[in-house]
């Protein structure tokens, strides 16, 4: 089997567990994101793949070969660190040529590769600059060029964009993603920013509480979260308790009931948690009360941030957050009565 395979990988520090039961298959040429809150073990997992941390258990295989015990410098993986870790005593060109020098590549060939990479990252004129004279974005690009200089089998990115300001980060996300697709290099990126993961990844691995919570494409993870942890971590969601009534209906805490997609396998009378995304909720004037999955509620807070309006509505014992655009706005204020429509197909039963 080609690609990177992790089998029952785990890591303990003394009695504390960093990650456990990690089973993953990362196919060739894809960009995989390890996404999770801080302290979930995503960086530890990346460092184990890199060979900078030992495994407490399990196996890591690359194209069928067990690499779990191979020292980092023999793995031929490129890595971009959170601090970038450029060598301050070398110029841009020397930094990029360093992995080539270590592999005994001839001077002329080193030079050619450095020039080629600098063209790729559009910093050709910077070859003799000391790295301290570069801007944040330029350093970022040099770190990537250095990591891919020796044509590694795998590119590892450890929160590489966290030091950049928001605007630059957004453009670098696109730039890195385009570069990765052009080079068709298998890449693993660690991030805690779900927007970054959604922008860049082919496959997102959601990590939480020291284990893998869900693996899937960005949209799968957003639309079909496997459990409450994922639903809560990815995007903002309305998660509320409900009771299964049977016949495709659920009861809300306030006694009202709404229709949901058939929740096969969940017994009638069981207490469950439901998810509805804020952008799926529709608000309308309170007089149109009668209707499908329409509840009457009271506005308790309005957060108008210009591009979108978040309205928090209390109905049937649950505070729902509804997201709307200004043109959909119906001029609501705190205390107003409003109708909330919850489309049946937008509701998801999370694990009970």
């Amino acid at each position, binding site marked *: 089997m080609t690609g990177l395979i992790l089998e029952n990988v785990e890591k303990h520090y003394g009695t504390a567990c960093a990650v456990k039961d990690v089973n993953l298959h990362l196919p060739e040429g894809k960009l995989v994101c390890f996404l999770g809150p801080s302290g979930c073990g995503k960086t530890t997992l990346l460092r184990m793949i890199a060979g*900078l941390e030992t495994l407490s258990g399990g196996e890591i295989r690359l194209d069928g070969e067990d690499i779990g015990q191979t020292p980092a*410098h023999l793995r031929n*993986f490129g890595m971009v660190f959170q601090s970038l870790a450029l060598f301050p005593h070398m110029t841009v060109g020397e930094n990029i040529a360093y992995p080539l020098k270590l592999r005994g590549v001839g001077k002329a060939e080193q030079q050619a590769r450095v020039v080629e990479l600098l063209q790729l990252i559009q910093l050709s004129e910077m070859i003799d600059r000391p790295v301290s004279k570069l801007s944040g974005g330029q350093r970022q690009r040099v770190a990537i060029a250095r990591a891919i200089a020796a044509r590694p089998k795998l590119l590892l990115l450890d929160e590489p964009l966290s030091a950049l300001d928001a605007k630059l980060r957004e453009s670098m996300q696109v730039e890195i993603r385009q570069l990765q697709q052009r080079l068709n290099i298998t890449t693993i990126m660690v991030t805690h920013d779900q927007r970054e993961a959604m922008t860049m990844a082919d496959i997102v691995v959601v990590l939480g509480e020291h284990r893998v919570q869900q693996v899937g494409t960005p949209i799968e993870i957003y639309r079909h979260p496997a459990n409450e942890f994922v639903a809560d971590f990815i995007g903002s969601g309305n998660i509320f308790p409900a009771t299964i009534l049977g016949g495709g209906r659920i009861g809300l805490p306030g006694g009202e009931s709404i229709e949901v997609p058939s929740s096969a396998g969940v017994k009638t009378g069981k207490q469950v948690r439901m998810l509805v995304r804020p952008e799926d909720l529709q608000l309308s004037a309170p007089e149109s009360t009668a209707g499908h999955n329409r509840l009457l509620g009271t506005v308790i807070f309005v957060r108008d941030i210009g591009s979108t309006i978040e309205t928090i509505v209390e109905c049937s014992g649950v505070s729902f957050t509804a997201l709307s655009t200004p043109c959909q706005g119906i001029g609501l204020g705190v205390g107003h009565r409003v109708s909330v429509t919850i489309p049946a197909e937008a509701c998801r039963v999370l694990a009970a």
Partner: protein
Amino acid sequence: MSLSSSKRLSILPGETGRFAGILSGIILLLAVLPILTMIVMSFSGASNLDFPPSSYSLQWYRAAWQTIVSPDASDVLSLGKAMTTSLLVACLTMVFATLVAVPAAYALVRCEFRGKAVALQLMSLPLVFPMVVLGLALLLVFDSLPFQMSFSRLVIAHVILALPFVVKNCTAAMLSIGSEVEEAAQMLGASPQRAILDVVVPLMKSGILAGMLLAFIVSFNEFTVTYFLYTIDVMTVPIWMYSRTVSSLDPTVFSFAVLIVLIDFVLIWALEKLVGEGGVSF
């Protein structure tokens, strides 16, 4: 009118008052006074040690020059030989102290081991230990050895004395190097040893150089411990000067002292140049 035009009563943070200025002036003067006295005395025209000298001349510099070019038979040891010994001991001390301190600094910063705190304490012990006791203790140890050491025991003693300074400077330099650059070198294909040589050592450079120069200065000026360990054939410049003052106190020593202060001054200036402000820890 406005508040800004009213009289300023208090000193703003970061400003020093006149009192502080005068006080630091006095302290500075006290610190430089011995050196100034020495320089003035070295230009004395009189044949005694009265201060201030009644007249000024270069006679003692001439006398000092004579001692160097044609050693007096009455001198137990020529200054030239003492100078050679001093320089050799200082250079060897510098080399050995650095060879010990660089790996020690690496281990103290990067590695976690049992007794790390104790090792740190022991390292700086020579700084607080009474020199006389240290000299005596070293003499007892060296004399109990079954073989004779004369030159090498000076080097060993000086390495012990210089080590705290060198380790301190190297550790300070090491602390500013994140482990990520070392890991980055490894990810790029450097073995752990190669990563240290290619990345850590070059980044420690200023700390290492500062430590080396300090080791040289400590060794070159060392007196107390050396006094216990020198032999009649192997003595350093400070010992030579002391024995000369004891036998015949004439202002020639001051001329030599001016020379030595000059050497130290150049070395310290070089140190500041190499490391830049705030880099050296004494």
